[in-house]
């Protein structure tokens, strides 16, 4: 039995377990993943994980409760577990209060998306990685295999989203903290593509091996490629676009509801149509292909979950409960990426940013470190790698007054987060040239 049939059997079991007057929603997630961890150009921890989870919400009137349970993958066992979970929730409902913020889809919107392309075995992929990195101090991880998401409810809605991906994240180290970080992610593996990326990394490693420059704290011109801007976007994803956080003034972008603005060239949207996230959310609402969030530097939208829609009388727009973007996309500009260093002239070419946090959330002031291949550039040429620096600056300066240019080219970066499960999310970002960035330590 394939896993989609198995999912449908679970939904059928939930249907059978209902009593009169009850409804349910079921959010399903599963994966079969090879994780291969590497260090010093060798294999450190290779493994395989098969996991399946169902999150069932049992609803009677305005009362409801949910049970997230792990599953064995055996239909006979798991259909009984689903029925037992529903029975347990039924027992709890009389003790609970009505939920004034419960909102369920008014229509049935089933959908199906299944994308699997042929891939070599994980063993073969790892062998290619280690062979191409031979002689270098490589450390990193390959995560590969199918990921599944499903939704079912008692109205007969069924949504299915399945995709097989690989996500290789690796670093080549020179010594101590001097390294080049690279990634190769996608649906279809090509050794030639990996070789090209490995060759780029080796080329950068030669620059990283130069004597480092220690910069004093101060304001410097800076170029943030998509790999660095990614960390800034992750910070904004942490409550920035949440309708609930905006309504309760907890969003770092709350001041944009008043008079704060970014540069007019900044445009950001939630572009589900171009990402890898499912086109449905965990309560069964369909997601629009595109939700505008910032246009012309102004906040024009937010991510609204069903609960928030009910609480603040808004229109739900496909957001999950956390109201975090899963396919954030930022518009490109007019600077060709190949001209970025020339446009930077003298300043910092940041490879990656690291460990960002808010030093003043309401002011959207954030701090973080430079990491990996970050270089001092003079007259458009790389001079030396730079010892790690701490920045502390506001988004309103970084992507406002101090934004000089955005690159034409944008990069689609698949989320590499593997906490608990492999994330199905992405960001699409250009590079950003800043006239100054404030470094403090």
């Amino acid at each position, binding site marked *: 039995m394939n896993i989609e049939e198995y999912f449908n059997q679970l939904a059928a079991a939930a249907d059978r377990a209902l009593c009169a007057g009850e409804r349910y929603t079921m959010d399903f997630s599963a994966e079969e993943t090879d994780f*291969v961890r590497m260090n010093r150009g060798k294999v450190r921890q290779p493994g395989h994980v098969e996991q399946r989870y169902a999150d069932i919400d049992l609803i009677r009137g305005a009362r409801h409760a949910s049970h997230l349970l792990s599953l064995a993958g055996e239909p006979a066992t798991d259909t009984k577990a689903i029925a037992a979970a529903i029975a347990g929730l039924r027992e709890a409902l009389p003790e609970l209060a009505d939920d004034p913020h419960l909102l369920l889809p008014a229509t049935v919107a089933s959908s199906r998306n299944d994308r699997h392309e042929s891939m070599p075995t994980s063993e073969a992929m790892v062998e290619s990685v280690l062979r191409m990195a031979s002689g270098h101090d490589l450390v990193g991880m390959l995560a590969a295999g199918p990921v599944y998401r499903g939704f079912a409810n008692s109205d007969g809605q069924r949504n299915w989203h399945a995709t097989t991906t690989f996500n290789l994240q690796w670093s080549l180290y020179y010594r101590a903290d001097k390294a080049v970080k690279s990634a190769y992610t996608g649906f279809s593996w090509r050794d030639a593509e990996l070789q090209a990326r490995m060759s780029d990394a080796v080329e950068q490693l030669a620059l990283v091996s130069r004597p480092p420059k220690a910069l004093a704290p101060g304001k410097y011109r800076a170029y943030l490629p998509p790999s660095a801007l990614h960390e800034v976007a992750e910070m904004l994803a942490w409550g920035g676009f949440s309708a609930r956080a905006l309504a309760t003034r907890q969003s770092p972008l709350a001041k944009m509801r008043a008079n704060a603005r970014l540069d007019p060239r900044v445009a950001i949207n939630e572009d589900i149509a171009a990402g890898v996230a499912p086109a449905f959310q965990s309560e069964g609402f369909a997601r629009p292909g595109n939700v505008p969030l910032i246009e012309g530097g102004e906040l024009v939208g937010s991510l609204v979950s069903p609960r928030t829609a009910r609480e603040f009388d808004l229109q739900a727009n496909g957001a999950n409960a956390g109201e975090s973007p899963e396919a954030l996309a930022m518009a490109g500009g007019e600077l060709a990426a190949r001209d970025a260093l020339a446009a930077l002239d003298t300043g910092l070419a940041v490879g990656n940013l690291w460990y960002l946090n808010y030093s003043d959330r309401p002011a959207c002031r954030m701090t973080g470190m430079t990491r990996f291949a970050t270089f001092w550039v003079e007259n458009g040429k790389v001079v030396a790698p730079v010892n790690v620096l701490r920045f502390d600056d506001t988004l309103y300066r970084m992507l406002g007054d101090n934004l000089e240019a955005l690159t034409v080219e944008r990069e689609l970066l698949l989320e590499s987060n593997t906490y608990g499960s492999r994330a199905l999310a992405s960001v699409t970002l250009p590079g950003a040239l800043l006239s100054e960035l404030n470094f403090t330590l």
Partner: protein
Amino acid sequence: MDEFRLPALDLDADFWSLRFVDETCQSFAVRKNVPQPLSVQTDRGVMASVYAGGGYGYAATGDTSERGLRQVLERAAAWARATARYALDDSRTLPRPAPRGDYASPSLLSALPTRREWYELLQHESEAAGCDPRIVDWEALVDVRHATHRLVTSEGGDVLQRYRFLFPSISVTAHADDVTQQRSLNGYRGICQQGGTEILARFGFTGAGARIAQEALELLAAPNCPSGRMDVLLAPDQMVLQIHESIGHPLELDRILGDERNFAGTSFVTPDMFGNYRYGSEHLDITFDPTRPEELASYAYDDDGTPADRTYLIRDGILERPLGGAISQARAGLPGVANARADNWNRPPIDRMANLNLEPGDATLDELVAGIERGVLLETNSSWSIDDSRNKFQFGCERGRLIEDGRIGAVVKNPNYRGISAVFWRSLARVGNADTLQVLGTPFCGKGEPGQTIRVGHASPACVFTDVDVFGGES
């Protein structure tokens, strides 16, 4: 035992283990006086680890039937054999544990409130917290988690450990005149211990809603924290973060061995420092202590089966040993502790912090304050950032209180401070006594490839550091 049936198993391998995890969690929450829907989680699965032909492999599944166990053992063995020629370490040289024993949380079987009683308690705190129109969001919640972990090894090892954890939390957001401030009870999920309802009493949970709300309102009217070099008195709910980020992570042996360099990072600590490096002033004593009953990450054995004992990592300021489990110890040729831990059945054990504590000194809180001419008392972590070698840090707190001429003065908002781990701990001037100590922790320590979010405990007294770079918010 009943929880996990174990058939007779035979595998063509040098060594194997099966690590079972069964956890159940009930989450109760009241937000803005509205009871949130009950949320229940049950998670059960098993991980097989196998040494074969010099290689190592693991496999995990939610299927704990006999068929599932045989499949994961074979799959793990296949990974071990397939990668043996590329293996970083020859698994034939690694320890093959055979532990036998058990562990139980304190108050494991003591009665807990019913669902209705939990909601009533949270409702009461929520209503007290939402006491003013300037309080724009507020929440009281508690997670009650039970866990059963069993480790069986081919050498005859069999360890059963049973836990109960409580995670109570209260937080509020206040807003007025374009100013927003947040306040919480010892930070977001900062209160987290093993045991029963005695945990609530220990932290004054009942009545905390009104207290936290008042402090948030006070912050709305407070001036920004001043900038400059001054002494800081760190309360325990900031000390836990300071210990965690700038002692705990840099001492993890897998970071020192380079495993984490692609993700969590490396460490400024190198193997040659153990036994001689001055990490901090003579007042700094750091222990790895899995024996403190109520602390979040107490246990009898780690997830590789190593017996867990209280051990000094830093004594009188001198670095003695790293946070490394049995496998890391074998790889590095260094002593370590029992800290190979996995966050669930679907992730392999790696070096983690568990309980990492700063031992109390002899000063009362009044004496700590009295010794400061110009400084600030910093309470409750709100922001944390540190470089990938765990050196340059910047931390922020929910609340500051100025100290002038040995007396606590005005409240200030948005306090931050920054420093460098390698020298910061040498400015530790005075350590509070046991009366100033709190046993806190976090369920959200992230690390590893694949990623793991694990429970760690930290116990610390209040501490004074001299000549620290302090600053406030944007305006």
